[in-house]
C-alpha cells in the first residue's frame, strides 16, 4: 500500500443512511426497467411459479436487491485483500453470465477453439511479441536521441514521434501495405503488421522512456560522471535501472494495448485472432460465439501481462522501499 493513514473511516456502504436508499434505488430501477423480462427473471420463474408481468418484475427486483444487500454484508466483513478478490470475481462472474445469456452454442465453440488458438492466438502473440521487442528498442533509441546534444538525432526523433503518434494506426498499416509497393517494395501482411505496430508503439514509448530518464535527478549523473564512468555505463548501469520504476507501469499499459491493437492487422488479411473471430463464424452464422471466445482469449492474455507487469514492478521497487 502506498500510503495508509491512521484514520478509520466508518464504512460507507453499511451506514443505514446509505444502505437503504441504495437498495431502494436498485429495487425501484430494476422494477421500473422490467427485470422479470431477463435471464434472472426466467430463473426466478423457475424457482417460484407465478404470473409474468408486474408480479414477476417485482419478485425479480426483490430477489436481486436482496442478493446485493446480502452480498454487501458479506463483503464488508472480510479483510481488504479478500474483499478485492471477491468483488473482482463477482464482477467477472457477471460478465460471464452476460456472455452466457447469449444462448451460445458450445459445441460450435468447441469445434473452432482449437483453430482459434493454434492459428489465431499464436499469430497474435507472435506479432505482438516481435513488435514489443522492436518498439522497446526504437523507444530507447528515440529517448536517448531526444535527450542527446546531437541536432540531427533530435530532429529525427522529434519527427518520428510526431508522425507516428499523429497518424491513426490503421492508416499506418494501409500506408505500409498499399503505399510501399508504389515504391517497388511489396511487403507481406505479417511484416506490415509488425512494422506498423513497432513504429507506432515505439513512438509512444519514446515519450515514456524520455520522461522516465528525465525523472532521475541530475545528481545521479554528476556522481557517476565524477567517478569517471562513461556515458554509456551511466545510462545502462545507473540511470535506466532507476527509470524502470517510472517506465514500467505505462509501458505495461502500452503492451496490453498493443496486444489488442494487433487486431487491426486483420484488415490486411493476417490470420490472427480477430480475423479468425470474424471469419470462422460466418459459415454457420455463429458470429457471437467466435466474438465471445476471442474476447475471453484477449482478456486472459491481458491478465497474464498485468501479472507480469506487477512482478517486474515489485522487482524494481525493492530498493526504493523503506
Amino acid at each position, binding site marked *: 500500500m502506498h500510503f495508509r493513514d491512521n484514520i478509520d473511516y466508518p464504512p460507507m456502504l453499511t451506514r443505514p443512511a446509505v444502505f437503504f436508499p441504495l437498495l431502494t434505488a436498485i429495487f425501484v430501477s430494476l422494477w421500473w426497467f422490467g427485470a422479470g423480462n431477463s435471464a434472472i427473471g426466467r430463473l426466478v420463474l423457475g424457482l417460484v411459479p407465478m404470473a409474468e408481468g408486474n408480479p414477476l418484475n417485482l419478485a425479480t427486483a426483490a430477489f436481486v436487491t436482496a442478493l446485493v444487500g446480502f452480498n454487501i454484508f458479506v463483503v464488508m466483513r472480510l479483510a481488504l485483500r479478500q474483499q478485492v478478490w471477491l468483488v473482482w470475481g463477482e464482477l467477472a462472474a457477471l460478465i460471464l453470465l452476460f456472455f452466457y445469456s447469449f444462448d451460445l452454442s458450445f459445441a460450435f465453440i468447441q469445434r473452432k477453439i482449437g483453430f482459434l488458438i493454434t492459428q489465431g492466438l499464436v499469430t497474435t502473440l507472435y506479432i505482438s511479441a516481435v513488435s514489443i521487442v522492436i518498439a522497446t528498442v526504437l523507444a530507447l533509441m528515440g529517448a536517448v536521441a531526444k535527450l542527446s546534444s546531437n541536432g540531427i538525432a533530435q530532429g529525427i526523433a522529434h519527427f518520428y514521434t510526431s508522425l507516428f503518434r499523429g497518424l491513426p494506426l490503421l492508416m499506418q498499416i494501409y500506408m505500409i501495405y498499399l503505399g510501399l509497393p508504389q515504391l517497388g517494395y511489396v511487403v507481406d501482411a505479417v511484416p506490415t503488421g509488425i512494422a506498423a505496430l513497432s513504429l507506432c508503439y515505439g513512438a509512444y514509448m519514446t515519450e515514456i522512456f524520455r520522461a522516465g530518464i528525465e525523472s532521475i535527478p541530475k545528481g545521479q549523473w*554528476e*556522481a*557517476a*560522471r*565524477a567517478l*569517471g564512468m*562513461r556515458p554509456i555505463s551511466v545510462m545502462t548501469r*545507473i540511470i535506466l535501472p532507476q527509470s524502470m520504476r517510472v517506465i514500467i507501469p505505462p509501458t505495461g499499459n502500452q503492451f496490453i494495448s498493443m496486444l489488442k491493437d494487433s487486431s487491426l492487422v486483420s484488415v490486411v488479411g493476417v490470420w490472427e485472432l480477430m480475423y479468425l473471430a470474424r471469419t470462422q463464424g460466418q459459415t454457420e452464422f455463429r458470429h457471437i460465439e467466435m466474438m465471445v471466445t476471442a474476447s475471453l482469449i484477449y482478456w486472459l492474455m491481458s491478465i497474464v501481462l498485468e501479472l507480469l507487469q506487477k512482478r517486474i514492478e515489485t522487482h524494481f521497487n525493492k*530498493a526504493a522501499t523503506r
Partner: protein
Amino acid sequence: MTSVKTAPSAIEISGLSKWYGTMQVLHDIDLTVAQGERLVICGPSGSGKSTLIRTINALEGFEQGVIKVAGIALTRDQAVVEDVRRRVGMVFQQFNLFPHLTVLENCALPLRLVRSLSAAEARDRAMHYLSKVHIPEQALKYPAQLSGGQQQRVAIARAVAMQPEVMLFDEPTSALDPEMVKEVLDVMVGLAEEGMTMAVVTHEMGFARQVADRVIFMDGGRIVEQGPPTTFFTAPKNERTQAFLQQVLH
C-alpha cells in the same frame, strides 16, 4: 636528464572566469593547491564556491582561464576530462548515492567499470574502504536504509576507493542533522591525516581550524581573503570576511 623535476601542483587555476548567461559568477580566480595541502573554502551562499570546485572536475565548464589538475590542462576533450575525473574524487552535499545499488555495489561498481577491477577485487577494495569509514556491517543494505551521516560516509568511501589524487568536498555536512556532522568530519580528518590533498567547501570552522593548511573566503565570485587558519580566524583583514565570520562563529 639533468633538470630537477618538481612534482606539479595538485591543482593550478589561473585567470578563471565563468558566466551563467550574462551573469559572471567567477571573476579571474587564481588558486594553487599543493600536493598534500588541505584547503577550506568558505563564503556566503551564492558566492561561487560550488561553481569553483565543480569546474575542477569539469562538472561545470568555464569561459576564460586555465585549470591544471596534476599538471594536465583541462579541456573539453573526452579523454582529458575522463583522465582528470579519475584523479579527482568528489563528495556532494546531497550524497548522490545510487539508490538502486547496495552500499557495497555503490563502491564496487565504479571500481569495476572505471578501474577495470575484477568483481572479487572490487568487492575486497570496497569493503576495505567501507571499513575505513566504519560501516562495513552496512555493506549489504540499500542507501535509503541508512542515516544521513552513514550515507555520506559511504559516499566518501565510494570516492576514496577510486584512489584519487585530490578530493573535492562540496558542503558535505550541510544536509545532515547536527548529531551526524561529527561522524562525517571525523572521517574527513582521518583522510587529511593520511596526506590526501583536499579542497573542502564548508562552514564547519572547527574543522577548518583543526585540519586546514589554508582557508579561502569567497564573495561575489572572487577570492576576497586567504591565509592559514590561525591568522584567518584571529585577524581577518577584509570587512566582509569579518562580517561572515561573526555570523558563522556566532
